[in-house]
């Protein structure tokens, strides 16, 4: 598994979109979701999202896995609202527990919104390679260079992180194995004990990471790196008609959702 967690490498029109368009669309949608105040509006956006997932050729099962981490929060929210919200007619009563229609409606609304927030972000990360995300972010942040924001440096850091995360992961595995071969046991004892047993892995990993950083810096400097000034870029981001279209569709969906 080479990619970072959520990226699903498959060919689709959504994958092909300019990452900047996708990032902006995601930001717009995420903000916009809070402007929608009706459940029907949210449902409309949900339908649009399902269509989007379909267009990105990601199997539904894999996509739903993205939602798993928030399932707990969603359930908690639903339970809370259902049990404690006091609005509308009583639907169900059992002892001192009272469930009212308003609570059910609110629960559905909030649950939907959480799921949509995660879903929208999920489509972004599933259809955009981490490197493209970094490029997109760098490009979008570059106007900030005028106010001395280190957009290039941030992007460089992201790219290097992306480059080394799999490597560091392998290194961690290797160190774990080496310490296990010397009798280390990472699964015994309570949380405190377990945390301490990670020291023989974390210390060498960290020290190694610093050494790596030194060597990498030497290599970069040796290859003429001197910061972002005067630097050209090999990768190209091309904003095409279809990207503008995607943005328009996004805004439209949002508008309809708000109006509903």
């Amino acid at each position, binding site marked *: *598994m080479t990619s970072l967690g959520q990226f699903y490498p498959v060919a689709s029109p959504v994958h092909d979109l300019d990452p900047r368009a996708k990032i902006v669309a995601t930001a717009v949608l995420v903000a916009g979701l809070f402007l929608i105040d009706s459940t029907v509006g949210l449902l409309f956006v949900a339908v649009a999202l399902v269509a989007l997932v379909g267009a990105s050729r990601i199997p539904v099962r894999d996509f739903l896995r993205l939602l798993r981490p928030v399932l707990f929060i969603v359930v908690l929210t639903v339970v809370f609202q259902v049990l404690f919200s006091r609005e509308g007619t009583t639907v169900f009563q059992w002892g001192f527990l009272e469930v009212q229609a308003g609570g059910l409606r609110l629960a559905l609304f909030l649950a939907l919104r959480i799921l949509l927030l995660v879903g929208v972000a999920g489509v972004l990360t599933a259809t955009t390679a981490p490197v493209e995300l970094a490029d997109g972010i760098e490009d979008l942040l570059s106007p900030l260079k005028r106010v001395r924001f280190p957009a290039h440096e941030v992007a460089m850091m992201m790219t290097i992180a992306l480059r080394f995360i799999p490597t560091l992961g392998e290194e961690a595995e290797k*160190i774990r194995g080496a310490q296990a*071969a010397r009798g*280390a046991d990472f699964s015994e004892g309570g949380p405190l004990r377990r945390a301490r047993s990670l*020291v*023989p892995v974390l*210390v*060498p990993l960290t*020290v190694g990471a610093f050494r790596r950083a030194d060597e990498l810096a030497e290599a970069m400097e040796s290859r003429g790196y001197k910061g972002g000034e005067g630097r050209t870029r090999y990768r190209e981001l091309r904003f095409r008609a279809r990207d503008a279209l995607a943005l328009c569709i996004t805004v439209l969906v949002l508008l309809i959702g708000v109006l509903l």
Partner: protein
Amino acid sequence: MRLELRDVRHVYAAGTPFEVEALRGVSLTVEPGEVFGIVGGTGSGKSTLVRHMNLLLVPAGGEVLVDGVDATTLKKSELRRRVGLVFQFPEAALFAPTVEEDVAFAPRRLGLDEEEVGRRVRESLGLLGVGDLAGRSPFALSGGEKRRVAIAGVLAMGPEVLVLDEPTAGLDPATRGELLDLIRHLREAGVAVVLVSHDLDEVAEVADRVCALHAGRVCAIGTPAEVFYRDPGLAPVTVRVASLLQESRPEIGEPVRFGETVAALRALSGV
């Protein structure tokens, strides 16, 4: 201790589209006190294989036997004490504030009392020729010194079999020679050594028996002469020279080690 791998299979990422069969039925035996060489290119499965020797990896098929007993029935800590595994570039796992502390890690994990731990630490450091570095920080040492400390850390467990995965990788030739001496010394002390190496000349110098792996399978196993003369194109330099002369001068025999090759070549050319 007799360490046997019987028809061991290993699959990475089983059940996913990235499934890879790294070992396809490997059988070999490491006899007590011998130096057993394992050679093969990248992707042959050498590193995967040795991780089965202390059950860091569990075979998907086949068995690992220690003196005839299934290793999976043994207590892991016990197995890992008796079969010490040194990874490639082991110095990447040094972590303690002093060399002493680092080498003491394994003996302490075994529950030995401090006096015994201290004795073992001194002994292992001495064996590796780095006794005077005991109080230093492992991070301030040279590459060769770190390598030796890391190996000492595993030797301090007192294993019956020491598995070394490319122990001389990245070392300068002089230090490499010293590590080979250590291997010979261990053999004399009755410790079996499994030497995984891509350097055939190195294996030729110390191994009693050799196993050649290719694509997860054993393609040759036996004495160094048996294995290396099978395919002299991919053999230690000594074997390559001798095999070039075999056709016209069969009396040269099948020397493998440097010393015996020189003797055979001398006899041949009347030097």
